[in-house]
């Protein structure tokens, strides 16, 4: 459930970026790095969730490397609440951030 917020955000951002690439590549370039960060956080969250899932199953099966497996779950838990939340802000930046770059005259910087 919670996962879908991040995936949906990534998809909305990708759709927006693809749409601007077709007509206004400068607008896409203006938010390309936030988009890459959004990809990174989302994919990072996905992979840590996979790791935690595998760790949880191994713990149930009685795997002896408990400390390692519990640390994997702790990392995913932390990441999901303290790091992954940044995807929401980045999605907003990708969707809304182009104007502020493209319309600003370089002489004003």
């Amino acid at each position, binding site marked *: 459930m919670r996962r879908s917020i991040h995936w949906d955000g990534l998809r909305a951002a*990708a759709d927006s*970026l*693809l749409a601007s*690439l077709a007509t206004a*590549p400068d607008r*896409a370039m203006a938010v*390309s*790095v936030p*988009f*890459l*960060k959004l*990809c*990174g*956080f989302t*994919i*990072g*969250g996905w*992979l*840590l969730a*996979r*790791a935690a899932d595998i760790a949880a199953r191994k713990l149930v099966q009685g795997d002896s490397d408990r400390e390692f497996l519990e640390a*994997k779950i*702790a*990392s*995913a838990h*932390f*990441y999901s609440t*303290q*790091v992954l939340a940044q995807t929401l802000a980045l999605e907003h930046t990708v969707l809304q951030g182009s104007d502020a770059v493209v319309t600003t005259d370089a002489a004003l910087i």
Partner: protein
Amino acid sequence: VPAVLGTAVEELWASSNLAFKLCPMLTLGASEAILHFATPEQKQLYLPKMVRGEWAGTMNLTEPQAGSDLAQVRTRAVPAGPNYRLYGQKIFITYGEHDLTENIVHLVLARIDGAPPGVRGISLFIVPKYWVNADGTPGARNDVNCASIEHKLGIHASPTCVMMFGENEGALGVLVGEPNRGLEYMFVMMNAARLSVGLEGYAQGERAFQQAVEWARSRVQGKPPVSLAKVSGSASMGTNSSPGPIIGHPDVKRMLLGMKSTVEACRALALYAAFQLDLGGAHPDAAVRAAAQARGGSADSHRQGLLHRERHRDRLDRHTGSRRHGIHRGNRRRTDAARRAHHHHL
């Protein structure tokens, strides 16, 4: 070695000594280009010693006027019998000169006299520091020299050089593959280096994290607002009234967890990408190979994308498809503690 194993091992090198690690990294890139595009004789002459680490390799692309825009490359290659004489200056050459190995195999982009302008007229050459005779024995010192060491912000133990080719009789070079296809070949090296550079980000993050967590466990300061018993495992520090190690402070814990989970996420991403490379390149089932390549596990897709980067379609691909960006994120996500020392040019 499978990429997934190589990536894991390279991380250890990059955490331990990033400056040193750049030497095998460049050698690997140069080896890849020779492996893919050189003649069997050239491979036999250079690869065994490079793979064993007896010889190092470099990538000579950048010139003062030609960095990201390699169409501006001006280094000249003049036919000289079966070989060429090279004349020109290259900058930002990682491990361009050193005495750690018996020989240095420079891979150099240059323009053969009469070649078409732009990227379609650039060829790739092997220019060894010491000429290599046909029987593999070392020959004369070649006319390639380090003019100066670049001043960088960090990784000073890695010699980043200004290289002069052909200040005297001309640097003797061997053409790799066909003329005017040098840029295409060079991207094989570039792409190998991309993965290696990306993992440096989280490798440095891991190093910073290890130092931070050790300090946070040993530095006793302040009275954490909760019981320390869970943290330290030491009964003597478990009371609220006595100072404890700073790892017991919630915000310190938060920072450490942030470093740890971020490094783990970056590592998972890099290993995932490396695994797709392995599947895409070597899996016996063509369908599995194709699926992995679609997920970015293809050296070819990157080379093509870069060669035609002026095209709209490829700009789009660069933004949507590839593991390259995922890996490069490692660098963007380095913790501030690790950022200080890491700035270099390939």
